[in-house]
């Protein structure tokens, strides 16, 4: 969950005065609008009323002026006019002549219906004009006495707009406007007051929320009244209280946690320091122990030489005649000292392998030559265990690229191991054939007790992983088998075992075929296994004929465990080395090694061509293409043995 920090919270602030003024302005506008509307209405009514009144007043004067000299219409004045003339002159709606009983005698009107619906009330005893108010037309009726005709009193009624009705309407309107104003302004005023209170409450809440957001100390909001704001304030106070408590708890927990972490860190540091001390001590002890055993092994060499030489001189009769029984016993002495001697060799090699100082001289060898070199010794060892030794070499097996001593020792150690686990009369097979990829595979097969397949699979891994265990006798396999892994590794091959309980074991190792490109792959594989992220450097060294091996030897002295010299032809070899990041220093070192050769006379020459320095995966392609280019223009890279095309994995 994302943590919310006080800085991220932004609450827009609206000052209270601003809110208040905005509300007041709204109320003011409403009131002003109301007042203006009322005034307009009043003005309209007033003007209508005034118009009608003026009009009514004008009627009499108009009638008087137009009908002067005529029988009277108004009080005590007689005018002669027809009803139509009267209507026209007075703009009245209608004109009616009635008798004393208010029965119509003659009538003229703009609208017959208007007249028809006119209801006339009977006149009083006097003949004074009367105003009829009850007309459904809400018209003002002017009544005037007419000169009597044939003894009959006559009156003229004129239908005029009802001014009194208009007045009533005006008054009603005014009352309505005032009432509406009061009705609206009252609640508005009330609402305004309420709003002010709410705004002030909201403002307080707003301030409190701001403080909360900025992690300021929380103060409760004042609660006034019983409205929503009050409820909100109560809820806020409640929430703020809980939040405050939570915050305090959180801070406390945080502090506690920090203290605990610090405590643990201190403990861990202490433990680490102790471990480091122990580690250093252990490394020192191990180093001392290894150095001691190294020295002991060295010291073994001389007495061993004495024992075997004295015994062999005696057996050979150089010190006088010996009996058969003496010869047999002395042979035991010689054999035992020979075994001890091998053990010492193994041990010293193992320590050199560990230190990376074992001298490696990889060259091209035929499989037969390799086998021939060690076969007499293998047969001797087999004979001692009364085990039959058989060898099978695939016809036309390709030559290998290896240090023949290391390869021989590998074969001897594996065979000695096979003999050791064989019963008298059993056979041990040494089989050589093409392996997977560009490799030659050597199998040493026994018919001994075997071991569980999973043990066989992890056998060499364990040797590889436990550098201390390497020196200890591992499950009775002895030191010899322990260093096999390293011996094979410096020869750019792999070693593994396959076995089943009761069915014997097969120990196999590979050596690269003699082909520069494949050897480069095998060399890179070895570097990659040791250090997958390594950079690898490549150089081509050229030098005069006889000096090549010498130079290779010098370089081997100066070199490290992972360097590989690969001959291209009689005068050139590729040198790959890694892990490295400093190709130039290496090239300089090489040139230094070369100098003595260059100073030698005549046909001696030497040079170093720097190919480059790359990550391993790139080095494969780069070196391969560099080599292909060089070998196309130079001498052939090797003999024409078919080689596996696959890259070794």
């Amino acid at each position, binding site marked *: 969950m994302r943590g919310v920090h006080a800085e991220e919270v932004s609450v827009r602030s609206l000052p209270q005065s601003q809110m208040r003024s905005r509300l007041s302005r709204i109320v003011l506008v409403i009131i002003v609008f109301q007042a203006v509307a009322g005034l307009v209405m009043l003005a309209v009514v007033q003007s209508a009323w005034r118009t009608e009144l003026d009009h009514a007043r004008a009627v009499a004067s108009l009638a008087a002026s137009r009908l002067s000299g005529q029988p009277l219409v108004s009080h005590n004045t007689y005018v002669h006019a027809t009803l139509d003339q009267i209507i026209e002159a007075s703009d009245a709606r209608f004109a009616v002549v009635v008798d004393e009983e208010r029965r119509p005698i003659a009538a003229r009107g703009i609208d017959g219906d208007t007249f028809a619906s006119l209801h006339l009330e009977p006149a009083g005893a006097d003949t004074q004009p009367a105003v009829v108010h009850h007309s459904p037309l809400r018209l003002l009726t002017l009544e005037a006495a007419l000169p009597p005709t044939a003894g009959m009193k006559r009156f003229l009624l004129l239908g005029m707009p009802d001014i009194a009705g208009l007045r009533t309407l005006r008054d009603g309107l005014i009352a309505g406007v005032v009432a509406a104003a009061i009705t609206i302004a009252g609640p508005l005023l009330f609402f305004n007051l309420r709003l002010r209170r709410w705004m002030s409450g909201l403002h307080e809440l707003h301030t409190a929320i701001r403080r909360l957001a900025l992690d300021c100390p929380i103060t409760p909001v004042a609660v006034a009244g019983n409205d929503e704001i009050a409820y909100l304030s109560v809820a806020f106070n409640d929430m703020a209280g809980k939040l405050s408590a939570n915050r305090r708890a959180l801070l406390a927990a945080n502090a506690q946690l920090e203290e605990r972490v610090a405590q643990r860190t201190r403990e861990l540091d202490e433990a680490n320091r102790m471990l480091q001390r122990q580690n250093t001590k252990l490394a020192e002890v191990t180093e001392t122990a290894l150095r001691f055993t190294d020295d002991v092994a*060295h*010291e073994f*060499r*001389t*007495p*061993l*030489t*004495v*024992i*075997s*030489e*004295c015994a*062999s*001189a005696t057996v*050979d009769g*150089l*010190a006088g005649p010996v009996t058969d029984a003496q010869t047999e016993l002395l042979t035991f002495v010689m054999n035992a000292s020979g075994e001890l*001697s091998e053990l*010492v060799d193994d041990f*010293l090699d193992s320590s050199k392998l560990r230190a990376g100082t074992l001298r490696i001289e990889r060259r091209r060898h035929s499989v037969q030559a390799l086998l021939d070199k060690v076969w007499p010794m293998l047969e001797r060892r087999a004979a001692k265990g009364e085990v039959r030794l058989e060898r099978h070499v695939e016809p036309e097996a390709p030559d290998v690229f290896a240090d023949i*001593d290391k390869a021989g020792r590998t074969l001897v150690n594996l065979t000695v191991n096979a003999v050791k686990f064989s019963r008298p009369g059993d056979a041990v097979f040494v089989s050589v054939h093409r392996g997977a990829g560009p490799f030659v595979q050597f199998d040493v097969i026994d018919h001994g007790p075997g071991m569980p397949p999973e043990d066989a699979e992890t056998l060499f891994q364990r040797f590889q992983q436990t550098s201390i265990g390497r020196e200890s006798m591992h499950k009775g396999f002895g030191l010899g088998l322990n260093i096999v892994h390293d011996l094979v590794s410096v020869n750019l091959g792999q070693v593994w075992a396959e076995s089943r309980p009761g069915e014997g074991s097969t120990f196999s190792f590979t050596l690269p075929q003699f082909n520069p490109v494949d050897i480069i792959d095998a060399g890179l594989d070895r570097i990659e296994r040791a250090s997958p992220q390594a950079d690898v450097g490549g150089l081509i060294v050229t030098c005069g004929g006889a000096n090549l091996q*010498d130079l290779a*030897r010098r370089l081997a*002295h100066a070199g490290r465990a992972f360097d590989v010299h690969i001959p291209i032809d009689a005068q050139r070899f590729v040198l790959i080395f890694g892990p490295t990041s400093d190709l130039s220093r290496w090239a300089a070192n090489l040139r230094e090694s070369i100098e003595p050769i260059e100073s030698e006379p005549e046909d001696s020459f030497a040079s170093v061509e720097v190919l480059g320095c790359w990550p391993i995966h790139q080095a494969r392609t780069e070196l391969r293409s560099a080599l292909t280019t060089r070998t196309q223009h130079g001498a052939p890279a090797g003999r024409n043995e078919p080689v596996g095309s696959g890259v070794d994995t």
Partner: protein
Amino acid sequence: MTRPKKILIADDNLGFLKALKLRLEAMGFEVIQVQDSYQALECCRRHKPDLLLLDVNMPAGSGFSVHDRVRRSEEIPDIPVVYLTGDARESVDTKAEALGAAAVIRKPTTADTIAKVIWSVLDSRNTIVKPHADAA
């Protein structure tokens, strides 16, 4: 018949010395055995051997000091020297090479190997033999 080649062996290990003497004599060499550098130098001057077989670590000075003195001497400056040592360090080779040793043989070894080296050194008396010549 040619005179048997005279080999001076200087080694502080008497057992090894005896066995080697027996073996080399059986091969037709004449062997003078000494156990320290002082005797070695002394016998060199007296017997003028054809080849010196020197242990590196001996009482009364190392094999290197014997070699150095022999090299500087007026009577016997050209005697080929072969080192016989149990010391596996590279420095031995470097030093031996600097002094112009004919070969370095590492113990443990056999009398046969030693004889082979002696013969090859004597055969190529006047040629430069590299210190790493095949000793196996």
